[in-house]
């Protein structure tokens, strides 16, 4: 995280992740029809919808506060992995579902980019990575 380039890359990725996750929050919390249908299919209506919504909100906040960006990206990538599992196992990729699934993939990629640029600050892993590069 010392050069400007990777700092800018990380912030762009953060904004992308926040924008996508944040925009779906509204549908999750307001119980929009499409959203409730999705979670009903997963057998998680309504608690699961709210839990995931809250976790996404937390991830967005962590992604904004400079000292917690790494944690936000970790949480974000975990949530998106779950979403992608959902698409593969139950929701499928047809029609609108494809768009939704791809958004999850985009957020996952964004979070991975953030984690890569800040890899030395990842708990546990960071120290080992540093050790590898100093060999």
């Amino acid at each position, binding site marked *: 995280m010392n050069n400007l380039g990777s700092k800018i890359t990380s912030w762009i990725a953060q904004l992308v992740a926040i924008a996508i996750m944040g925009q779906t929050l509204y549908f999750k919390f307001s119980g929009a029809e499409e959203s409730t249908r999705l979670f009903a299919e997963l057998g*998680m209506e309504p608690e699961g919808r709210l839990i995931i919504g809250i976790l996404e909100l937390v991830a967005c906040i962590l992604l904004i506060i400079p000292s917690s960006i790494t944690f936000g990206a970790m949480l974000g990538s975990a949530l998106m992995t779950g979403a992608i599992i959902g698409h593969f196992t139950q929701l499928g990729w047809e029609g609108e579902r494809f768009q939704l699934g791809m958004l999850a993939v985009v957020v996952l990629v964004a979070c991975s980019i953030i984690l890569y640029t800040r890899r030395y600050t990842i708990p546990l892993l960071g120290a080992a990575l540093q050790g590898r590069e100093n060999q």
Partner: protein
Amino acid sequence: MTGKLVVNLHKLARFTNIAIPLLTGLFFLAGLRISFYFHFITVAFIFLTALNAFYRFGQKGHSLLRNFGILGQGRYILESIGPELRQYLFLNDTEERPFNRNERSEVYRKAQDINSASSFGSQKNFDSTEVKVRHALFPIRKKDLKPSNVTFGEERGCPNPYTLKRPFIISAMSFGALGERAVRTFARGAKQAGILMNTGEGGYPKYHLEEGCDLIFQMGTAKFGVRDDEGRLDDQKLRDLVANDSIKMVEIKFSQGAKPGKGGLLPKEKITDEISALRGVRKGEDVVSPPSHAECVDIESAVSFISHVQEVSQLPVGIKLCMGISSEFRGLVSEMKRQNAFPDWITIDGSEGGSGAAPKSFMDRVGIPLFPGLKRANNILTELGVRNRLKIVASGKLVGPGRQMIALCLGADVICSARGYMLAAGCIQAMQCGSNTCPIGITTHDPDLQRGLDIDLKATRIKNYVDNLEHDIEELLCSTGCRSISELSFDHLYVPKDSTLHAYVTKPN
């Protein structure tokens, strides 16, 4: 055959390494068949599997992680919190180094002006290594003490002698090693206490001058602030600098106890734009000063250089060194005698001295500790009949009145300390001076960390610390029956058989 009760960690690790991916699969199935909620665990285990795979196959730096995977991580986690656990819980009051809890809390109490009477008994060792001060049968009263003025430069008739009213100096710490607020704290404290502060080898003393305390300008081997392009002394720059009223004396650094034989070191983490400008060095690289002054190649040139600096600055000029080979020191003093040119003082720094950053091998293994070094230096000066031509300043863990008193008995005129004042300003001995992460904001340039240091409050603590040190030294003096520091001598010490000083005992104890 007795069975071993301890867990075979290697077997356990092999089990975990298979169990983690297996469980990942199981939770995935559970998420698929039973409830999607199981995927919360699935996801966690996917990440755990990836982390474990990386430890086992992706990295080579840590053998333990390569063999044991995340199970091995437990060891590193425990190890990393070890120092804190030991400091807070497991080490007793007299065990820590460099300063144990007793020594630190004595400084804290003095700085906060809290009564430092102890109860029940001493925690010190009374065995054959501990030096003690001998008291007189008829102690004197404080009003009978002579004032403890020390005038630097009086011996040689220096045109601008300097009189220090209390025998304490804040030892060299550069702006660079210290952050801006720490420099201001020490400078303001020195001003309130009416003592001297040494600038350290950090170049132009910008913040020190703003605070207006009396200063010793230290000329390190790199001569930051007064160097020409080749790293030699630029006379004009020195003249301009000492034209500042606050600069009362100049100290030429030959060596420092924590790293004698090596030049100063400022890690790149601590080089800000401002510091690179003040020192004239590049950012992003460690700054390593040369091990010696370009002008000083042998004892002859070294002595001439000292008198040259005296000539140019017209101020008292001293040298700082850690004792090494005694015959060399004898040679140096003999040469001073031959040229009839003496520094106005010599600072003897013990090898137990501190540093913002020094190679561990040098900190641990090079140089003579303060007490034997000081005694040796004082003896050589006395034997050559020139002890009255200069003052001796001593430093090296002299943070409490006990050790200070011993140093005074060994021949020191003035007590100098760096870490004593750091502790007084709130240092908790986190031992991170070199990494710019000082948790209480003294040796860091990070504004967030420096924020913790309240300059006015901590300056008062410095003053309290000096007041209370002086109080204790005066009381100790009274107990010995001496009326001033200069009357103290080696005979005022009880030196038991196993002390490093025992070699100097001539009369039976």
